[in-house]
């Protein structure tokens, strides 16, 4: 992990949204592509396509977006909007996420009332669900690489990640308990690591 001064410098010449319009269009397109989970598209859009942030920075912001109440993807758009344009940026980002998709979903609701007994419709949705699951898993695996620079070290990160996955996916614990139990432990340990490193530096 870079010391803070370096990060400030690298932030200055990083690509960023030029206008509210660009922000709105970006999030509208994301939302319209995002079936079954926008997170896969957000990560790709922000880190790979727009290069508004590094994968490490994305993960740090995602940690905030994911631990606060509300849908993580929407929270992420609020964080990004606020960073570049303040309150207006957040409002524009959320509007981008919702304006067009709300229209689409209402149209689908009216259509669904007529076609919900068609097996093809049900099977097509299942097929898309399986792909969406793959998109989300792949995004998670890609984000694992951003843990290499984590202050806690690769081994501890791997143990924490594995334990969280087993508890939530396999043992079906409530996410809230995992965040409390492992989250507080991890933050405490990370704090200790940061202090130790700064003392030895």
């Amino acid at each position, binding site marked *: *992990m870079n010391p803070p001064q370096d990060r400030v410098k690298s932030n200055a010449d990083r690509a960023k949204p030029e206008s509210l319009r660009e922000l709105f269009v970006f999030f509208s397109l994301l939302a319209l592509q*995002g079936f*079954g*989970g926008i997170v*896969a598209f957000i990560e790709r859009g922000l880190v790979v396509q727009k290069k508004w942030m590094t994968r490490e920075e994305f*993960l*740090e912001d995602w*940690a*905030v*977006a*994911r*631990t*606060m*109440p509300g*849908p*993580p*993807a*929407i929270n992420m758009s*609020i964080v990004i909007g*606020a960073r570049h344009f303040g*309150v207006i940026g957040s409002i524009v980002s959320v509007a981008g*996420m*919702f304006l067009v*998709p709300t229209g*689409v*979903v*209402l149209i*689908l609701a009216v259509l669904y009332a007529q076609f*919900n007994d068609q*097996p*093809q419709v049900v099977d*097509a949705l*299942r097929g898309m*669900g*399986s*792909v*969406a699951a*793959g998109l*989300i*898993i792949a*995004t998670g*695996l890609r984000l*694992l690489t951003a*843990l290499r620079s*984590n202050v806690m070290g690769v081994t501890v*990160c791997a143990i924490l*990640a594995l*334990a969280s*996955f087993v508890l939530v*996916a396999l043992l079906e614990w409530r*996410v*809230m308990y995992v*965040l409390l139990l492992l*989250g507080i432990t*991890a*933050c*405490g340990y*990370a*704090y200790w690591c*940061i202090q130790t490193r700064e003392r030895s530096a």
Partner: protein
Amino acid sequence: MGTLSIAMSWDDWLTLIQNFLLLSAVAMGGPLVLLPEMRHLLVDTHGWLTDDQMSASVVIAQAAPGPNVLFVALLGWNVGLNNGSYGWAFFGAAALMIAMLLPSSLMVFSTARWIHKNGHKPGVRAFKQGMSPIVVALLIASGWTLANTGTSSLGDWPFWLVTAVTVGLVLWGKIHMFWLLAIGAFLGATGLLSVA
């Protein structure tokens, strides 16, 4: 799916909106987690929605592009339809969606701003660094859960294969994610995945 006919007073709407404002503030990990509470409120306690309308709202929002939280708009939409008109449906959709987003968004906005300002403090860095491996695992876990939804028997292996191939193509391929979804829909619709 709208067979219910109800007449809601302004007090009823107010109760409904208040409840969703509260739910928003406690919606850790996304609103889908609160589905049981919403069902209790809308179906059991007040009878503003049918069970079928409840599940259809979730299914449609997940099938549609856009944030899954739009199922809340559909809940409001259906309550409005039950209340007699498309006008009420639009009102219900807007009211519930805004109620569901406003408190959590305000909390996120102020927290994000504070964290950004204090990003250099050891406590803030410890929070971000400590939470990182856990939230990544939660992401993979939610993909895992989604892959499991509707694939209950071993005969559903083609759906698992689609998920696995998707992971491989995203990580090592160049194909755009949107096309992967389209292919998934096509394979599903043609019945190729339902071999068992």
